């Protein structure tokens, strides 16, 4: 990627991995990248990932902080580095370890949650929001939106947008008699219909998350 610094956007924040001890070059490169990105990263958190060989002094840390704040980012954590670096980081009130990302697991409570039954057509500009599961008997027209913290079952056509697991349940599913949505969302993932394709022959389908992407397959009844 770059000989001085590697930048990765992750769900936890923007990960900076310096490849050099030449901090002047590293920070210069970083500034260029942030400049190019415009306000794409704005409001995000920054994680600096050091290897044990990296040295880091107070002035460099302060400069880095100033730089990211100029682009409306927050320096959140500095991981790795030697003991001296870690002590300095702690003194500055920053994290040295990232919290473990929550491991998604099927919550017994969520599985048992109640479902809301709604019988209507969700027309363009209309939005149905459910705190648990939702069963819609009717269509979601283009421009309409159905959102649930749990699963979504549509006894009809989904031509608009459906968002299951809206509060982050990655085990949430979307099932419909006809699934031809503008967009499908499950937890934090978004997928859209391939462009320029004719709607497929309609058969009941189910959408769920598999290995960090949303897959859609025939719904042969029963649960996943």
């Amino acid at each position, binding site marked *: 990627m770059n000989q001085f610094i590697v930048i990765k956007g992750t769900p936890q924040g923007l990960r900076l991995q310096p490849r050099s001890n030449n901090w002047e070059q590293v920070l210069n490169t970083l500034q260029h990248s942030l400049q190019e990105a415009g306000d794409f990263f704005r409001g995000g958190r920054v994680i600096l990932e050091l290897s044990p060989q990296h040295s880091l002094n107070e002035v460099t840390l302060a400069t880095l902080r100033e730089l990211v704040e100029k682009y409306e980012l927050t320096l959140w954590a500095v991981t790795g580095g030697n003991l001296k670096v870690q002590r300095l980081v702690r003194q500055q009130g920053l994290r040295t370890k990232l919290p473990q990302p929550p491991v998604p697991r099927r919550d017994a409570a969520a599985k048992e949650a109640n479902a809301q039954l709604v019988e209507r*057509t969700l*027309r*363009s*500009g*209309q939005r149905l929001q459910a705190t648990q599961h939702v069963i819609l008997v009717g*269509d979601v*027209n*283009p*421009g309409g939106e159905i959102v649930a913290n749990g699963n979504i079952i549509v006894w009809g056509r989904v*031509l608009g947008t459906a968002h299951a697991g809206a509060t982050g349940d990655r085990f949430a599913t979307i099932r419909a008699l006809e699934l031809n949505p503008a967009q499908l969302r499950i937890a934090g993932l978004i997928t859209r219909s391939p462009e320029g394709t004719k709607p497929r022959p309609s058969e009941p389908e189910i959408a769920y998350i598999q290995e960090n992407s949303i897959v859609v397959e025939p719904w042969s009844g029963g649960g996943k």
Partner: protein
Amino acid sequence: MSGKIITISSGKGGVGKSTTTANLGIALALLGKSVICIDADIGLRNLDVMLGLENRIVYDIINVVTKQCSLRKALVRDKHCSNLALLPAAQICDKSAISEDEMERIAREAAEQADFVFIDSPAGIEHGFRYAVKPADLVLLVTNPEVPAVRDADRVIGLLEAAGRAPVQLIINRLNPELVRRDVMLDADSIVNLLAIKLVGIVPEDPAILIAGNRGQPVVLDKQSLAGKSFRNIGRRLTGEEIPFMSLQAPSWLQRIFRFQR
């Protein structure tokens, strides 16, 4: 006597609301009904032009609202049918000059004097749309066989349903059977299927409509035009008659050859 108040609306602009209003007004007048058309598009009036009545306007709807003249005095009698009258929009004001209640009062007063009152709604879903649909006993939604127009129609139906307003029925305007046959235009079935409301008419695309609108001679008066016939049929359906939908399907080249042989 209290007539039926029918608002012609669409959401999207340019789909043929004023054309529909003018033609249905004349269609019902030709059936012997007394009709008043109200142009609710204040500031952008054009129903008068389509009816060819522009040069006969003396008073307008705002004069009636401000009680500068009576409704009866503001009405412009149509030159084609003596039992059709137009209440013109004001051109020098904008839509904020009239409230929902004032529009309702005027429409009700008009309904006292006529069998049918048509209100030509402005495009959009803002104040102008709201005051136009407030007094309606029936909303006729005009759409074109185009994705954006159908999307906006769906939005309007949603708003009307949410407000618990009058029943909504559908008119599909400017359908081109040849394009439908080639599978590049939405067909009537899929539009009705999506919008899930009652269809009262399909008007084919017809250059005669444009010419008629420019001349102030609505196409419904043209006995030759298929579009004119569609409007006359819709008019009869509005009086409660059951009229089967005509076939608009353009003959395929094969059918054309067979007809030629015969």
